């Protein structure tokens, strides 16, 4: 089988920034084993696969290790490929996914993801994770991911994690978000995954499904700008809409190619 393959940097307008995702359009679903093998071969944080379905597309995401429940940056990348490479005529792309219907609105090169809100609630932090951190958070909450809140942006930049302790626990498909109020933006964050091939995710849309309702309440704002402070950096515009969140960003195509499966 011969498949088209695109690699796209999401949540940035600059090449080599944001979060790289691979995107593979399909006619129909092959065996899951093949999807896993392709994601492992690509070895970026997520590979998005989609097939046509009704007026929209059915979408799935795989890391090099597992299938994900929800992934923002690869959804944005898929929408970018559908719009700019596959020349989709509309400005509203509808995906069905393991996390229900997801809409992406396209305007002037900006993609707005309409995702479920996953408001985190206060939760105890597993000891291994607490002990793996160079500094304890001031507050701990949890939805899919643990949300560790710190006093200031510098704490997020300076976070050090002892992987030997951190990796003792499996949180699939969740991770650990480190967050604080931003110096120049509303809030900043970083995202780490235990027992994963890729330890720090450069920019994580789905983490913002929890960050948006939390910071919206803390700051008393519905509309916020966020930065993810990984080495590659990502910029996200966020809106709290009650049971949904809007996350928007830009994208750049890095490569276009063909993949052979045999």
């Amino acid at each position, binding site marked *: 089988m011969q498949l088209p*393959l695109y*690699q796209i*940097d999401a949540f940035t307008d*600059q*090449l*080599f*920034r944001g979060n*790289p995702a691979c995107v593979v359009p399909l006619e129909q679903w092959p065996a899951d084993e093949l999807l896993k*093998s*392709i994601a*492992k*071969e690509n*070895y*970026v944080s997520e590979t998005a696969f989609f097939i046509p379905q009704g007026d929209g597309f059915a979408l799935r995401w795989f890391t090099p290790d597992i299938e994900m429940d929800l992934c923002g940056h690869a959804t944005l990348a898929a929408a970018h490929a559908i719009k700019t490479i596959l020349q989709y005529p509309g400005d509203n792309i509808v995906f069905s996914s393991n996390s229900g219907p997801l809409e992406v609105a396209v305007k002037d090169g900006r993609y707005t993801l309409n995702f479920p809100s996953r408001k985190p609630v206060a939760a105890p932090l597993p000891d291994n994770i607490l002990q793996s951190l160079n500094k304890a958070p001031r507050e701990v909450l949890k939805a899919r991911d643990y949300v560790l809140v710190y006093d200031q942006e510098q704490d997020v930049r300076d976070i050090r994690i002892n*992987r*030997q302790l951190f*990796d003792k626990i499996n949180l699939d498909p969740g991770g650990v978000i480190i967050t604080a109020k931003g110096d120049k933006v509303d809030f900043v964050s970083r995202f780490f995954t235990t027992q994963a091939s*890729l330890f720090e995710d450069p920019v994580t849309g789905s983490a913002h499904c929890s960050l948006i309702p939390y910071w919206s309440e803390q700051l008393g704002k519905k509309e916020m700008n966020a930065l993810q402070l990984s080495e590659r*950096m990502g910029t996200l515009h966020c809106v709290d809409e009650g049971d949904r969140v809007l996350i928007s960003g830009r994208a750049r*195509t*890095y*490569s*276009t*190619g*063909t*993949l*052979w*499966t*045999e």
Partner: protein
Amino acid sequence: MNIPFYQVDAFTKIPFKGNPAAVCIVDDTVTETMMQQIAAENNVSETAFVYRNEEGFQLRWFSPVVEVPLCGHATLATAHVLWEEGIVPKQETITFNTLSGWLSAAQHDGWIALNFPSLLGHQVPLPQEIRDILGVNPVNAMFILNRYLVELATEAEVRALTPDFSRLVNHPRIVVTAKGDPGSPFDFISRMFAPCVGINEDPVTGAAHCALAPYWAQQLGKQSMTAYQASARGGVVKVRQEGDRTVFSGEAVTVIKGTYTLNPSYATATLSN
């Protein structure tokens, strides 16, 4: 600027097995900074950059974080691409100028042979902590250049290892090996753990066979051997010991072929953040 690239699985002819390397055919306008950024974006263990000048083919290898001095599987992948794309006629040997001097690649019946210097070492006691982490009682242990070579009694022991990689971070690379079982198609098998350089387990490692070949040549009294690296992806390596050189060969398959579309202004743009 458009740069053609290939992703090749080395030491196998089956896609998704062997060891993946990216290969980029460039010219001398591609800077070192660009090479490092491309390698980081690709995120495969090594990206090879090859270009031709009046001296011949120049070859460099980059991991996602740093330029590396020597890499077997990405060299094999590069030679595969140059022949497959008709850039070099298939019967012709290719020589590459690299950070480790001139390296040659030749092809016979789909097997690509690379000629590298052998790596020799000396017998050492394996530290107790490594024995504990691996959970093994080795038959023999050597220290070779910067890595341990650990011989176990059976293939099954090598295949069954599930070390706690986080505990290996502060130890050198470890190549674990065993003689092939009676009736096995392989003279020896191996696995390679390198958490110290960010790789828990390398899928298939050409350079490790520059240490394994002289070791097993002496143990088995054979100069030509067939080996299997028993990682999850797995790969077959044929080796021939020739004095102080090791010739190792493998097959290769192109899995992805495409183009990087780099905006000419990107270099200045990336400096602005």
